[in-house]
């Protein structure tokens, strides 16, 4: 039975993507455009409740796409510290303090209403952006990223370069884990090191990592030469074949999604710029808190 069980996850350089996901029904370029849209849209939304809605939608997408939510854990510390930093900067350096709307004093420091609300809105915005990024990398393998890049017309040399860079990041990580074992095998105990010792120890990871990379760069170059590598988009004046792209065709459904995503993004942008609907002042939360503190 064991043999027939499909693998639950595919490995990527930085982690795993689900083995099966509804996202895979979409062409990589649709997924990339979704990433770009979710990476831009939050910048046009100030209203906290709409940002929260956005966050909720992305979290639902995580579930729909079959992504293991444990993956979000490593980002939690960052999301917390980011929240603290934003709040601190806006408490210590309040904006629109001349309006004098002080909610309360904390340890002798005036907590300004508008500034705090703004910090909150910005914080939600950044969470949205981080989640959209995490979502993209949790549902796309490296090859999907490359196919998407080539589909939107990135020159071959650029997409090939990105591919090779990602590949070498992978090699680098593999080497790193072996080196760590090798150091351990020679009795390195990081816990006992002084600060200077730690710095020196740092070099002990770096030296073998780089020497290996240098050797590999020679091997890779000769290997590429052996394959007649041409880093141009044209071979003999004819457009270079793109096998990977040809394997993944854009269907009508993909086109529909693309149009929908673009339309939606543009609409939100237009609404945001031309109307006050998405501003922080238009927020129901903003208004209620304002009412609560200042009547």
């Amino acid at each position, binding site marked *: 039975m064991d043999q027939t069980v499909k693998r639950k996850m595919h490995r990527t350089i930085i982690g795993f993507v689900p083995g099966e996901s509804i996202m895979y029904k979409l062409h990589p370029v649709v997924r990339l455009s979704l990433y770009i849209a979710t990476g831009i849209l939050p910048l046009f939304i100030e209203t906290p409740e709409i940002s929260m809605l956005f966050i909720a939608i992305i979290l639902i997408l995580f579930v729909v796409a079959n992504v293991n939510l444990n993956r979000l854990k490593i980002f939690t510390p960052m999301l917390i510290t980011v929240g603290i930093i934003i709040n601190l900067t806006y408490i210590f350096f309040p904006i629109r303090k001349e309006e004098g709307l002080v909610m309360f004093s904390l340890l002798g420091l005036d907590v300004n209403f508008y500034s705090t609300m703004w910090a909150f809105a910005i914080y939600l915005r950044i969470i949205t952006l981080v989640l959209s990024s995490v979502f993209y990398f949790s549902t796309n393998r490296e090859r999907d990223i490359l196919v998407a890049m080539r589909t939107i017309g990135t020159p071959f040399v650029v997409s090939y370069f990105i591919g090779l860079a990602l590949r070498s990041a992978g090699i680098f990580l593999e080497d790193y884990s072996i080196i760590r074992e090798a150091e*351990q*095998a*020679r009795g390195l105990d990081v816990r006992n090191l002084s600060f200077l010792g730690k710095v020196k120890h740092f070099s002990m990871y770096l030296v073998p990592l780089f020497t290996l990379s240098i050797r590999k760069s020679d091997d890779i170059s000769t290997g590429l030469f052996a394959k007649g590598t041409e880093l141009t988009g044209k071979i003999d004046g004819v457009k270079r074949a793109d096998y990977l792209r040809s394997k993944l065709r854009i269907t009508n459904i993909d086109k529909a999604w693309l149009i929908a995503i673009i339309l939606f993004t543009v609409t939100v942008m237009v609404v945001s710029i031309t109307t006050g609907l998405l501003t922080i002042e238009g927020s129901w939360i903003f208004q209620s808190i304002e009412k609560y503190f200042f009547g």
Partner: protein
Amino acid sequence: METKKIIEVKDLVFTYPDGTTALENITIDFYDGEFIAFIGTNGCGKTTFSKCLNGILKASQGSIVVNGIDVVHTKDCMELVKNIGYVFQNPDHQLFNNNIYSEIAYAPRNLGIPENEVRERVIEAAKIAGVSESIFEEHPFFEVKGIRQRIAIASILSLKPAIIIVDEPTTGQDYKQSIEVMEFLKMLNEKLGHTVIIITHEMDIVAEYAKRVIVMTDGKIISEGSVKEVFARAELLEQANIKPPQLTRLAQELKDEGFSPDIITVEEIYSEWKQIKGKNEIAEKA
């Protein structure tokens, strides 16, 4: 003669973080002064097993005791390193000092040994491993691979570990270099009394140098014993996707003619050949 148990492994299980089981219920003892070879296909668990032995990988279940140290639970990795040294397959993963001297001196310095003794150890280890003192100030990067491998071995020898594990000592080496490395390990084993464990795909090397062979498949030990015993079990080896050395296979193909299935050297097969030939001639005359 009673020899001391140097490694005791009991019900060892190792599971990778992603949930795949790499080792399943391994129980085996190794004795002081043995020369052991781990064989098996790529991915059979032999490297994982050997890394568990020196604590690079932490066993998920079971116990490993090396020279009285509980490998699975010890916090003192120094104590462990003094007892069991591990030479990685690719020397480039373990050379990180600016010159060859400090490379070999690195591990003893980690132990906090006084500098004059470190110096003695470095010179001794370099001599045993065949690293010339004249290149002590050179950068390891610029040496050829054979030398880099020797430096890697010397940098472990300077710890004077009772047990030395070498992963693929002959990969990428030519015949002469292979013989040199193996003769060197043999010397460590026979003259200096180290317990030596090698992990290898080269059955000729196993036949010629190992005293005891451990055959692994899918994270389990499926066969173990002396070289002759193990290579004679043709069916079991097939199950592990292993082929005995060419001469053993030749003898096994000639089983019907009266050759023994556990031949490993040319001398053995030649003397059997003479015997059989002689018998046949007598039979013919009669």
